[in-house]
């Protein structure tokens, strides 16, 4: 059992591994020649796309994968280049990353922390992935982010909206482009004020788990600052499918706004139930009853069908945006797949581009160098206007969209319309904001 003749370097030099680009996995190795985990020494580099392919978020996951494929295609110089052309940083040349061809492996998170970590580990240990990205739930994102920190690879979070991802559970190796609960609330509040006034009684229904709580905390704080009164905050079981018994008490509560801090299947069902109970036609205290859904997802809004009409919420990005970057992205995605991308697809495409660009600027795949390149990076042209990757918590600060369910949709995907683009400055908070307190980035871990 000697390593001498068949050293890792030796093998690589002989080019035995060239072509496949599968660098030997060295994760968790006590002593290794490489300076960091999964140093791509061949002619290609492997990225790990960890998305839900089974389970309730499988459709989001599928859309994310489409965007990843497109991003890889663009990075390798195929296709029309998409947002690479509009991106303010011009490092990417369409020749892969640092001249290495981009390859990818996919994994199924099943929207379960355990499965997600297992699949991320397999990509790192077996396939030699140097970066992990993806996810469609905060619990999973936080779990995988923790893993990547330990393993010494970069984690580029996908769709994760909880304050905790870049709050108390932030990690030095983890980065989030997507917005969060606080930003949703900050963006929505002024719009709600304009639409519904300052004298309102809000009733909150909240999915009873960490994301729901942070969302509820954020939106309640933001609306109370407007002068709204919070009548009641009711927690609903995550597994609930019929929300009627939670909606029914709203009728006689004296509230005139219902805030649904739900996402995914929960959102579809609670919104459907709320509309069934005639809340939209109700008049309380002489005002029209209103429903607010802080986090909208177009894919899910489809499940609620006509019920979303006229209901306000926030979203990270929407395909109807008219800026150059968004249009370029929608064009290349739409041409390839025949329908416009979702916000999940957009955020993961951006994350892939941002990672590739950061590597190019750093001139190295070393996670610490990449992290340094990303920290405090300001960019534009990726669909959200001028954006800052803040160094203190690895959160992107950019414009947030307030959207409304469209009254007369012209197609299956034309469900939301952008009401307002809330500028980044308005949703920016100090890094030590109490809702994000309690964690530390720690120091960057290159692994190996």
């Amino acid at each position: 059992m000697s390593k001498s003749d068949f050293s890792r370097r030796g093998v690589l030099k002989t080019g035995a591994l060239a072509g496949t680009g599968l660098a030997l996995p060295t994760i968790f190795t006590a002593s290794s020649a490489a300076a960091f985990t999964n140093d791509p020494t061949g002619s290609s580099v492997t990225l790990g796309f960890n998305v839900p392919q089974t389970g309730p978020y499988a459709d989001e996951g599928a859309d994310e994968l489409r965007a990843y494929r497109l991003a890889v295609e663009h990075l390798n110089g195929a296709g029309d280049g998409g947002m690479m052309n509009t991106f303010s940083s011009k490092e990417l040349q369409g020749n892969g990353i640092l001249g290495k061809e981009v390859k990818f492996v996919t994994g199924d998170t099943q929207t379960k922390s355990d499965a997600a970590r297992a699949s991320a580990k397999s990509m790192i240990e077996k396939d030699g992935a140097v970066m992990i990205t993806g996810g469609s739930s905060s619990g999973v994102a936080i779990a995988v982010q923790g893993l990547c920190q330990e393993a010494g690879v970069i984690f580029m979070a996908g769709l994760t909206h909880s304050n905790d991802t870049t709050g108390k559970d932030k990690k030095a190796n983890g980065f989030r482009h997507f917005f969060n609960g606080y930003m949703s609330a900050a963006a929505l509040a002024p719009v709600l004020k304009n639409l519904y006034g300052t004298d309102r009684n809000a009733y909150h229904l909240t999915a009873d788990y960490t994301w729901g709580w942070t969302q509820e905390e954020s939106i309640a704080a933001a609306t109370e600052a407007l002068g709204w009164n919070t009548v009641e905050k009711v927690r609903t079981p995550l597994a609930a499918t019929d929300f009627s018994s939670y909606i029914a008490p709203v009728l006689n509560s004296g509230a005139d706004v219902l805030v649904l801090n739900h996402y995914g299947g929960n959102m579809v069902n609670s919104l459907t139930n709320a509309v069934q109970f005639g809340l939209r036609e109700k008049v309380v205290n002489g005002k029209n009853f209103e429903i607010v859904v802080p986090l909208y997802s177009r894919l899910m809004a489809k499940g609620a069908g006509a019920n979303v009409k006229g209901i306000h919420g926030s979203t990270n990005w929407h395909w109807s945006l008219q800026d150059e970057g968004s249009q370029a992205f929608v064009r290349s995605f739409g041409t390839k797949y025949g329908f416009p991308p979702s916000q999940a697809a957009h955020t993961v495409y951006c994350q892939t581009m941002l990672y590739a660009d950061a590597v190019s600027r750093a001139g190295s795949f070393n996670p610490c160098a990449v992290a340094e390149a990303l920290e405090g990076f300001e960019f534009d042209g990726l669909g959200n206007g001028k954006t800052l990757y803040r160094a203190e918590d690895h959160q992107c600060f950019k414009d947030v969209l307030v959207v409304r369910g469209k009254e007369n949709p012209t197609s299956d995907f034309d469900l939301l319309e952008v009401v307002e683009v809330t500028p980044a400055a308005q949703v920016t908070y100090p890094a030590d904001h109490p809702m994000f307190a309690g964690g530390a980035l720690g120091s960057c871990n290159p692994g190996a």
Partner: protein
Amino acid sequence: MDAILLQILNGLDKGSAYALIALGLTLIFGTLGVVNFAHGALFMIGAFCAVTVQRILNLSYEVVDETQKDFLGNALKVKTSYVESWFGPEMGGAIIDWAVPIAIIFAIPIMIFIGFVMERGLIKHFYKREHADQILVTFGLAIVLQEVIKYFYGANPIQTASPEALSGVANVGALFGMDIVYPVWRIVYFFFSVVIIGGIFSFLQFTTFGMVVRAGMADRETVGLLGINIDRRFTIMFGIAAAVAGLAGVMYTPINSPNYHMGMDFLVLSFVVVVVGGMGSLPGAVLAGFMLGILEAFASMNEIKSILPGIDQIIIYVVAIIILLTRPRGLMGRKGVMEE
């Protein structure tokens, strides 16, 4: 007071779904002695019958309209459904609007057929096997069925609206001088389930067929010895049970948008209902269904949640545990069932 009445109403409405599923489960268990873990999947397939009918009615042809643009700036393809073009926009629109009730007509034969195939193709071979084996094979079948549905319909929920005339709310308290509004479709669902349950009971009670089946439930061997082909009747019962589950699913679609795992969501619950009611007891299943529905509705009231946090998450299970420990055979169970 209003709040309490509202929750009772809500409980009845929740309970009707539980009762319908539990009724089908009990029919299968009582007649065939088979524990059917795929029953939730039958409910789900029923719901997707409605989705399919809706999709078929919405089948449309595309006309390229050069004056309008799609999201890529190409000419927009305007879709018109065949139904609308055949019957005219008004009549066609009405047909599409009534997709869910129309689906009932299609769902009955489809579900009976699926029931027959399941019974003849699979369940039949498990009459003599242990209950554990029955649970396992039907559990496997449930996984397969839901994955097949997911493959064709995706993972996200699909909206299927109730007819315009039956959506909205009705003031059910008006009769008593109170102001209790409740969604019309949920009231429809409640009465629908009452009709189905009543139908099944009178079918078993007042027809010869029902009498033979009941005799078979009590003593299968003797009925067989009398020269009656009890097997065929049992197959038919399985078909009927499948149809009950399917109809429950069809009618449920406007309440919550169906998705592929709704069957599994209901499965655990409906088993709890059946066990609480007493395995093999039809009235027990119905009673337990409504009872658990009402209890669940009350547990979600904020007044109760503030005293017992999280009670709405576990109420069903707590009730099941208490009942099973105090009334070992459930509310109305018979001795010797499932206790080998």
